[in-house]
Structure formats: C-alpha cells, structure tokens
C-alpha cells in the first residue's frame, strides 16, 4: 500500500497549565523525519503525553508551534486535523456499541467515503493486523481479548491512511508476552507502511526496541536528549539520561547490534567453537560465551557456511 508520511516539527512548543507552577512541556524543539518512529520517553511529570496531545490539539499550545509538513497545526481546521492523524491510546477506547467494522470505519465514514470502499478498507485492515475479516468483522469489542482490542485500535487509527500516527502507551496495559508480540508486529507493519509515528512510553526498553529516535524528557517538560537508541546508550548526554536508561545501558546497546556488523577474523582453528548465525545480537552472543566460558565463537551465514571468528573482546569494544 503506498502511503505518504509527513515530517513533524516541534518548534519551541510549550504548554503551561493555568494555575500550575512551571511548564508541562517547556520549549520543546525536535524534528521527526517523515517515515520514522520517534519515541517520547521519560519519568512521569516529563510531559510526554502532553507533548503528544499538543499535536492533535487535544491540548492547546501555550506558545511555540508544531508543523506537519511545514504547515502549522493551528492553520488546520480542528476536526480535519484530527481526522488526518491516527490516534491510539492505552485504554484503546473502542466504541463498545459498534462492531469492529463500525469501529474501524469511523473516520472513513466521517470523511464520507463510499460504503463499498469503507467495507473493502475494513477487510484489508483486519487482515493487516492479523484478525479474520470474515469472522471478526461483526463482533463487538467486548468479545475480544486485550491484545486483539489493541490491534483493532491500531487498525482504526490506520483506517483513513494517515500520514502521521500518535500512539500514547499503546501496549502499556497488555501483559508482557503479548506486548512483545504486538511490538514485533507493529515494527513489521511499520516496515511496510512507513508512517511518521510519535510513540509515548515510560518503558526504556520499549523505547529502545521501537524507536528510530528517542526523545528523553525530564521533569518540567524539557528535552534531555534526542538521538538514535544507539547513541543514547553509547553517549548519554548527561547524568540524568545515563541514570534513566539504566546501569545496564552497555548491555542494552549490545542488544541493538548483530554479529554480522563486526569485523570478523579469518576462519582458522575454528574447531569446537560455538557457532552462531550472523543476525544474532551481540548481547545474546556474549551471554553464550559467558555461559560456556568461551573466548571466541564462529559466525555462520544463513546457509550454515562459516563467515569468520569473533573474540570475546571484539564484542565489548
């Protein structure tokens, strides 16, 4: 499915709630390139959800601006703006009185799509998120599990093919196993759809897994660091970021790289060495060496042919 994505720019975006000390979001400036996932993460009070809701004007800006493909959100008609942005929340908020078809078709109906086109789109989306269009179309949200509901929430947000998606802790209320699966599915979908996504979470590991870029907000709504997961783990901007990503940030960083990315030594004297495929993460490789008290391992290709040898110290460099 061809899908356009929009560039999103926060330009000194600020929110001050009346009657409260200090800003919730304080002069936030960052650019999310089209087609990338930007994760907003930080402790509570960091204003990440507020920042997200500024974009579709569920919360009005106090000062500064937010632009989508160069046009200020303030220049858009409010309802048109919201209909053009996909919105997913933690509690999903499906309409209990509507079937899945009714739920997913909400925004297309508001936009006045012809019936047949809406129906076709619903079928397409149910398939996309791994539900059965024939069986599930006429079911009500109460008949679904938490994970299924969130899939429908995602399908509903994607219905009118928005160029920008806002996701507020979408997997936060789901048990860890299903959450991991939904994250994987979401990343697989994103490979295909290439939407611009703003994703809020309080979970650093989720941020590292999901984000192309991570914006870490500190209390008072100021931006502590905005960078790729790797750089945030390798070079935290300050003590706050280092603390926030955790003492195991070196290990988390290893999880983001694979054996295939390393320079390999020529295959020689590889007998008896453990063998691992090139797409194994450095973290898993290290875990294996620690468990086996080994010093080196043999990296193999998809066809099982040896590619080269990696020493333990190569993993840590």
């Amino acid at each position: 499915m061809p899908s356009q994505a929009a560039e999103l720019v926060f330009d000194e975006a600020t929110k001050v709630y009346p009657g409260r000390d200090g800003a919730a979001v304080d002069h936030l400036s960052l650019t999310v390139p089209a087609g990338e996932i930007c994760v907003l993460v930080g402790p509570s009070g960091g204003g990440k959800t507020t920042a997200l809701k500024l974009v579709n004007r569920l919360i009005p800006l106090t000062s500064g601006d937010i632009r989508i493909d160069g046009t200020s959100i303030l220049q858009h008609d409010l309802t048109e703006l919201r209909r053009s942005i996909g919105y997913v929340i933690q509690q999903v908020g499906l309409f209990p009185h509507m079937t899945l078809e009714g739920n997913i078709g909400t925004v297309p109906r508001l936009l006045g799509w012809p019936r047949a086109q809406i129906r076709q789109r619903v079928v397409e989306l149910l398939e996309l998120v791994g539900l059965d269009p024939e069986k599930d179309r006429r079911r009500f949200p109460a008949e679904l599990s938490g994970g299924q509901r969130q899939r429908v929430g995602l399908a509903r947000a994607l219905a009118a093919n928005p160029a920008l998606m806002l996701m507020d802790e979408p997997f936060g209320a789901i048990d860890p196993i299903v959450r991991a699966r939904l994250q994987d599915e979401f990343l697989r979908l994103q490979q295909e759809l290439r939407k611009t996504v703003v994703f809020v979470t309080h979970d650093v590991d989720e941020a590292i897994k999901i984000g192309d870029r991570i914006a870490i907000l500190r209390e008072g709504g100021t931006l502590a660091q905005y960078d790729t997961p790797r750089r945030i783990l390798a070079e935290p901007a300050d003590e706050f970021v280092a603390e926030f990503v955790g003492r195991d940030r070196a290990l988390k960083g290893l999880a983001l790289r694979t054996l295939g990315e390393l320079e390999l030594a020529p295959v020689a004297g590889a007998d008896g060495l453990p063998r691992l495929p090139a797409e194994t993460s450095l973290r898993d490789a290290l875990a294996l060496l620690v468990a086996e008290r080994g010093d080196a391992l043999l990296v193999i290709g998809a066809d099982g042919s040896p590619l080269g040898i990696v020493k333990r110290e190569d993993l840590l460099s």
Partner: protein
Amino acid sequence: MSAQWVLGGGGPVIPKFGTPNECLKNNGWFCPEWVREHWSDILQPALIQHIELTVIAVGIGFVASFVLAFVGFRYRVFDLPLGAATDFLYTIPSIALFQLLVPFTGLTVTTIEIALISYTLFVLYRNIVTGLRGVPAEVLESARGMGLTRRQTFWRVEVPLAMPAILAGVRVATVSTISIATVGAFLIYYGLGGPIFDALGQPDIFRTELVAAGGLAILLALTADMLIVLLQRALTPWNRIR
C-alpha cells in the same frame, strides 16, 4: 365528589349488570358471561383509553426528560435543580396532584396527562443523565482524538451507550404510569380506572368488574414491560455480551 361512577352506584338494579345469572346474583369473582357481554362497551374502550393515556404520558415525558437531561448533562450547574424539581414532583401524592391541577385544567383528560407526565420525569431524567455520564472517559477521548464533533459524539457515541439506562428508565416509567393512570378515574371516568372505581362504588363491590378491569391493567403492564425488554435487546445487541 364529582366522579361519574357515583351516578351508577345507588340503585338496586344496575343496567350494566345485563342479564342476571347465578354467577352475577352471587357476585362471583369472575363471571365470564358479563365480561363477554361488556367487552365492547366497557372493557375494550377503557383499555384503549388506558393505552392512550400511557403512550401520551410516556411519550411526552420522554421528550421533556431528554431535553432536560441534555441540559443537566451538558451544563452541570443545572443538574442539581432539575433533579430536585423532578424529585419534588414525584413526591406529591397522585390524588393531591390531580386536585391541584383541577382549577387550571378542569375535569379533563389533560389534567390526568399532566400529572402522569410529571411522574415520568423523575425516573426518566435520572436515568438519561446517569446513562450519558456513564460513557467511559477513554471512549470519549478516542472520539475526540478521531475528530468527531461534539454533536457527533453526542448522537453517535453518548446516546447509544446510554441506551441501556435510558430504556431501563422507559420501562419503569411505563409500568408505573399504567398503574398510576388507574387513579385518574378519580377525576373522570377514563381508562381502566373507570370500571375499577365503578366496581368499588357498588354496594358490595362488583367483583367481576373489579377483577376484569384490574386484571387488564396488570396484563397491560406485563405486556408493555415485555415489549420494552424486546426493544432493549433489539437496540443494544452489544450489551448482551459481557
């Protein structure tokens, strides 16, 4: 007293008794012959009038309550006074309310209707407001986030989701209106209360008429109750899964 049933109350032979038979002479609890004979001139007209009284009272009461409930729901400051007003109306004993209205609307069906309508407001207002307030916050947030206008949110989300509570209110209002409407015959001979008061006014209480008319009122209430339950199921299919 002005009620019409008094007129037939005095004489030893009442034309309505029709052809006397054993059952009627003994003032039996239920004489089928009498019911058959007077179905078309007493019971059926009374039943139709009763249905009319109820439908009009609940219909107008519903529209009025819906408008009031919308105001009380959208503008919270009005909720307390509106709720208190409908509460207050409900506390007035029905016979007293009829009498209070007579100076204004006389001995008319209108007087009965006004009283009946004011009784429906209490349960309908409360239920509609409670239903509208009961819509989960996350549902409203997603509606807003997806770009539904306020009006669209009201008609497409809040009203349908309040429907179980609204219909529960309609159910109680209908059944209680059918019951209270019999008292309306205190004012004029109208509805099923007519034959009931008539029977009670006979020297020894005309049992067959009392049982027949009273029974019809009960049957009418049960039927209406059942129909509304069916309506509930048809209108809120999503509410049965849970």
